[in-house]
């Protein structure tokens, strides 16, 4: 198969941030996830939770609540502002101060016309949603005590507000509190300690509350009496979520468990129903802060930074890719860029960049030392790139792009900022250098901008439309957008060359072969296409793949492919990697048929030399390095593998809630 010198890199201290809010849009089947660093990620449920878009974070922005109104996404946080996210340009559209102190919760009414925000000062503020903004309408309540959680009744006439030690029900017509439901700590705890209603749900006939005493309580709406009390945990119940048909309820706790309640017949075939605690899922080590229910799956996220998609097996008919548990821990885009010729590594952190330079001339050993690039402004980095020759570094935030020039003489490294970047290039979703390092390509939501780089400076050359996920060789540039359209541009003529037929799943990675000019596209559902740019059609290999179909083991992988590179020594080799493996596809070998063993390296080893060839197939997986953030080929047949051990991430997390395991 080929042997490589492997540079195993473990000094990229990537640290994901915790999940603090989540909202699922049933119409568009998109899940919005807010993290503690202020970034918002969008996942597509139809595309097996492929991370489609990321709105980069910002320092001091904290999002406490997310809310979908139609296709618009609103967020609010402790800064006291309600903001709308621009999901095309991946940045804030506007933000408006609610003038009520920190906002703990926002919720929109079922009709989608109003937003309610629960504020620190004890008021529920109603906003009318207009075309491009929101307009304050009125205040409700106004007594002391912050409003932690909100829930809107499906009729739209009542709002339940969870506060400290009580739940208030507001009538929207009058604007007054109709009911006060007192939530107390049980006798076990000290009575003096306050009981925070972290989450409240307004079902058609009951109000459900989850509080810091670890109880899930069901209240009658009309009488305001407690119907049922479930002690779920010793600690806090942080979040609640209900299915659309209101027969199933989930509660997330600080122990990291998700508890399911179901409305079940007490006796089969009779009317009487009761909320019964049924299953308990424990997939988190830390607090479960956000929960979202999407018909057949329950999605949970919390302080341990991972997004867990748990299928509800009783609602699935047969075993498929959807019926397995999915944990999303690593970003589904590359945070590492590698200068192939110069052997540089650029690590992208939210607030700074780290450049590792090769200092030792030895081929096999890559001694590196870091150069740290601090960031100006409060915005986080959204993308970055290093030129193959190692002379140029570029990064983009939502407010601007910066280009640096790196000069090295022996041991001294100097970085100078290149001034006067063209005005058009204000913000980019993707940055990319041409293989000869003469051009920088930056994409926005509408166009690809080309900047020529010379030692004197940079010059804006052209704008090509339209854009995202870029890969280029010298002559051609391919760009894919979030609608999974792929456009190919001829960079010599500076005009559009052709488009690739659209496939239903999003593009997770692509690459243009440096010699054959074939574009290899990997989609989020792990389908692989090879498109010949020169002939403007799929290659024979790609047709064969589509005809024979890929092996089910390959298709059932749960993390999308992040990167595609090629082996310069062997043009038949395509190297793909996702978070848990990297794979070399040898296009000269036959594809595995459905019945054959997919991971056959060990069995091949045991076979005699002559028989090996007969049994070998195109896919060679390597799971030696895990979890992977980047795999790239350097020019001298060596492989750079950037790992981030899970243990390092978990040790950096705060200590979880202490639990007694065995007790009498």
């Amino acid at each position, binding site marked *: 198969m080929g042997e490589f010198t492997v540079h195993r890199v473990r000094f990229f201290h990537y640290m994901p941030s915790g999940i603090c809010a989540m909202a699922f849009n049933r119409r568009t089947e998109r899940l919005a996830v807010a993290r503690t660093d202020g970034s918002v990620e969008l996942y597509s449920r139809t595309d097996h939770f492929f991370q489609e878009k990321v709105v980069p974070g910002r320092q001091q922005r904290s999002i406490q609540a997310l809310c979908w109104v139609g296709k618009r996404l609103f967020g609010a946080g402790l800064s006291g502002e309600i903001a709308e996210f621009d999901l095309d340009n991946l940045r804030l559209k506007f933000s408006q101060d609610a003038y009520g102190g920190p906002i703990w919760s926002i919720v929109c009414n079922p009709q989608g016309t109003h937003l309610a925000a629960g504020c620190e000062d004890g008021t529920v503020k109603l906003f009318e949603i207009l075309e491009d903004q929101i307009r304050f309408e009125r205040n409700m309540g106004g007594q002391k005590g912050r409003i932690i959680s909100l829930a809107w009744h499906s009729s739209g006439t009542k709002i339940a507000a969870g506060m400290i030690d009580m739940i208030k029900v507001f009538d929207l017509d009058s604007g007054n509190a109709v009911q006060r439901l007192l939530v107390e700590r049980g006798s076990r705890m000290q009575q003096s300690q306050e009981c925070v209603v972290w989450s409240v749900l307004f079902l058609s006939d009951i109000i459900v509350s989850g509080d810091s005493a670890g109880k899930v309580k069901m209240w009658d709406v009309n009488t305001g009496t407690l119907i049922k009390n*479930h*002690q*779920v945990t010793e600690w806090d119940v942080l979040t609640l979520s209900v299915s659309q048909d209101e027969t199933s309820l989930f509660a997330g706790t600080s122990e990291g468990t998700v508890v*399911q309640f*179901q409305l*079940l*017949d*007490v*006796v*089969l*075939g009779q009317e009487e129903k009761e909320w*019964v*605690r*049924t*299953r*308990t899922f424990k997939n988190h080590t830390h607090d479960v802060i956000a929960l979202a229910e999407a018909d057949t799956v329950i999605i949970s996220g919390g302080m341990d930074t991972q997004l867990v998609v748990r299928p509800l097996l*009783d*609602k699935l*008919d047969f075993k498929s890719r959807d019926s397995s548990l999915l944990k999303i821990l690593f970003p589904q885009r590359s945070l590492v860029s590698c200068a192939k010729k110069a052997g540089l590594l650029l690590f992208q952190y939210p607030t700074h960049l780290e450049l590792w330079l090769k200092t030792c001339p030895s081929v096999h050993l890559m001694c590196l030392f870091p150069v740290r690039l601090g960031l100006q402004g409060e915005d986080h980095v959204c993308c970055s790139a290093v030129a193959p020759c190692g002379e140029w570094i570029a990064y983009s935030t939502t407010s601007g792009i910066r280009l640096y020039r790196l000069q090295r003489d022996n041991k001294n490294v100097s970085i100078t900022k290149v001034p006067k970047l063209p005005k058009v290039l204000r913000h980019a979703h993707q940055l990319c250098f041409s293989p000869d390092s003469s051009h920088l390509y930056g994409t926005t939501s509408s166009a690809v901008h080309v900047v020529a780089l010379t030692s004197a400076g940079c010059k804006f050359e052209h704008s090509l439309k339209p854009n995202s996920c870029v890969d280029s060789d010298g002559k051609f540039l391919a760009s894919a957008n979030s609608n999974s359209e792929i456009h190919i541009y001829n960079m010599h003529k500076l005009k559009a060359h052709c488009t690739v037929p659209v496939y239903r799943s999003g593009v997770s990675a692509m690459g243009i072969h440096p010699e054959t000019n074939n574009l290899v596209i990997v989609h989020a559902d792990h389908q692989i296409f090879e498109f010949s740019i020169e002939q403007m059609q799929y290659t024979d290999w790609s047709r064969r793949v589509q005809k024979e179909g890929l092996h089910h083991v390959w298709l059932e992988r749960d993390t999308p492919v992040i990167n595609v590179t090629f082996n310069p020594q062997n043009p038949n080799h395509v190297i793909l990697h996702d978070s848990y493996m990297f794979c070399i596809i040898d296009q000269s070998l036959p594809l595995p048929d459905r019945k054959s063993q997919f991971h056959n390296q060990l069995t091949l080893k045991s076979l005699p030399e002559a028989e090996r060839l007969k049994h070998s197939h195109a896919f060679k997986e390597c799971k030696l390095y895990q979890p992977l953030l980047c795999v790239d080929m350097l020019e001298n047949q060596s492989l750079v593998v950037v790992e981030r051990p899970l243990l390092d991430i978990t040790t950096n997390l705060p200590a979880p809630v202490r639990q007694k395991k*065995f007790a*009498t």
Partner: protein
Amino acid sequence: MVESSEVRVVRCGGSRINVAAPVISVDSRFLLCASGDLVKVFSTSTEEWVHVLQGHTNVVTGITLNPANQLQVYSSSADGTVRLWDFTDGILIKVQNAFQNAYPGLFTHHCPHFPPECLQLVAAHVPKTLEQEVEVRELSSVLPNISPNPRAVGFGREVRGWICLDTSCTFHLLFKLIYKSTKKGAKNTFTCVSCHPKDDCVATGHEDGKIRLWRNFNQKKEYTYTTLHWHHSVVNTLCFTPEGTTLLSGGIESVLVQWQYDRNSKYILPRLGGSITHISVSADGSLFTTSHSDNKITVIQSNLKVSAVIQGLVKGEAVHTDLVIDPRSKALVLNGKPGHLQFYSLQRDKQLYNLDIVQQEYIYQEGLDQYEVVKAAFDAHGSCLATVEERGKKLSDTEITLKFWDYNETAQSFVLNTTVMTPHDNRITSMCFFPTAETTMVVTTARDGCFKAWLLGQESDTEKQGTDGPSWSCDFVGRYHDLQPTNCCFSADGSLLAVSFQEVITIWNPETWELLTTLCQPPGNIKDLCFGRLSCSRYLLATTTKNMLCCWNLLTCSLEWSTSIAVTLLKADPLSENMAVFTLQKEQTDLFVFKPCEPRPLFTQNALCVGEVQRAIFVPREEPLDNCDESSLWLNRSQLYCLTENMVRFTARKHAVIDDSVAVTPFYLLLGKHRQREQEMCGLPVTEQQGRAQLPQGSVAVRELLHTAAHVLPPASFLCNMFVKSLLISQTGSEKEEEESEEEMDSCDAQQDRRVQGLGVETVPLISKAQERELKKVRRTDYSWLSCLSDS
């Protein structure tokens, strides 16, 4: 007298009482449990045995209350019958010969039995007839291939569905659905099941210690379950209380867990002393019973307080210590709970007490290497006890401890005197006490090639140690050619010690420790060694692994006789010359009793039982019999008890006794005869054990009156007169009684006829002397035979 005596094997007790879940009567006064062939009725408050329901000819597999009449109980047995009893009086009401070669085990509410015939669940419809014996023909198969475990079937509310688990880990809700434990690799196999009495909820226990509450099972796939997890290993049994408010569960941890049904809270009752195998709840929910693996039933009140403990004979995996008789209490001593010796009363079939030998906390966990008591021996008076405990499967980590105990009069128990750590370098193979009281000496032989003699220290030694009294120390270490000693035995007077080294028997003088002679009869290693007693004390008997039984004459040091016989056990009666030999042939054990001096066996019993007799012992009688029948002469001074293991169908052990039926008094002879007849008629095993133990010298009539069922007695007006008379002090001497009874014996059959006439006679105002005598006879007779007559 002579003709009537006959030697029989009687199953006398020690059977497991934890085979089937016990049943509590509706008033919570009685506890019924299956015990061997019997159903025993215990009092829940006093723990005492009230009476037995006997009639089954094979092991009882399940009992349940009759839902139509709560004072009746159904019992099923491996003999293929289901019987209905009135348990307050102990009367058999109905026999259903339903299942030829069947294995009835379970019951439901209305249809009385669901026997898993070849592991098949069957519903049987019982025809309504008045006859006592009913043949059930209408059988409908419900489910094939179910688990043999009775806890794997549960009955739901209103018999709308019942649940059972079959051998392939599938969970059937009959007529509805089938669930499979799906996850591969996970240890979530179903082990037991119970149904909520009111709601549609099924609780199942799993191998990984979880309990799942299944609900919503009418929908095809949207069933759902709640998991309760406390047990760390297999959940053995589950039971809902009748109101459905709590769920009880038990497992190997010997902890009873009480789960609140609709809340996520639980209460536990730890340290019950043995892993829980069954739980049952009384009808009002006020009493729980838990059956434990150490043959114990614990009665627990609903506030989780233990109110009574019914302890049967504890039998672990093996009886390492042989059966030993405590000379002081005449109790049988053997392994009990782990690390304990149990003292078991053979007469009362009850455990007397436990002696903690290991004196360490026992941890209930599989795979732990526990200390086990492997040897125990008493001295002649029962004032000294020596025990050996060991731990460790491999030789390298074996820990052996030898302990000597003294009987403390004030504490009425044994008190530890000396502990010897590692008395030998390898496992101890045998241990025996010096037979006479003059010297206190113990000889141990071990696989490390030597035997050691241990002596109780002299009084002078004690002064150095303080006030603790004399302690034991090693006196002599003997070896013979680096061979491994297997057995040791003292002669009856203690003048000789025989130690067998593989093929060689060495005879030593215990005074001087001089090797007197060696005896050898190859091939084959010595398995058992035994000196003759009394008149045969010059003989030494040994059995070898090559199926030889040899007898040496110690006076001539030559082989007296030898015979080729597959001996499994050789036992000597301590009070007579007799020896008992058990042989195993074609899966059946035969018994021979002989005297070493005579070549002809005194007694032979073929096919004593199926399978091997594991242990046996002669137990001295409290009062010797004077019986002159040749074949039962050997039983005059002691009884032979043996312990068997019937591995064919049950892991249950039966405890059998070989006993003679000859009674002490002539009256008893008569009684015995009737009992025999009863046996022929109903196939009942005899319980003279019980009868004899209670036999009073005085008013027999009173006892008979009280013991006979009311409905078979003559009218009260008729009996009253006799009853009052019987309370008066008789003027005739006891000699006369004797004469009378002898007369009775001679004309036994004739008397029976007369007695029937006597019952038919109306109350006579003036009783003639002859009539009076006749009446006297009547009141002394056992009327239970009448019940049999009337029943048949």
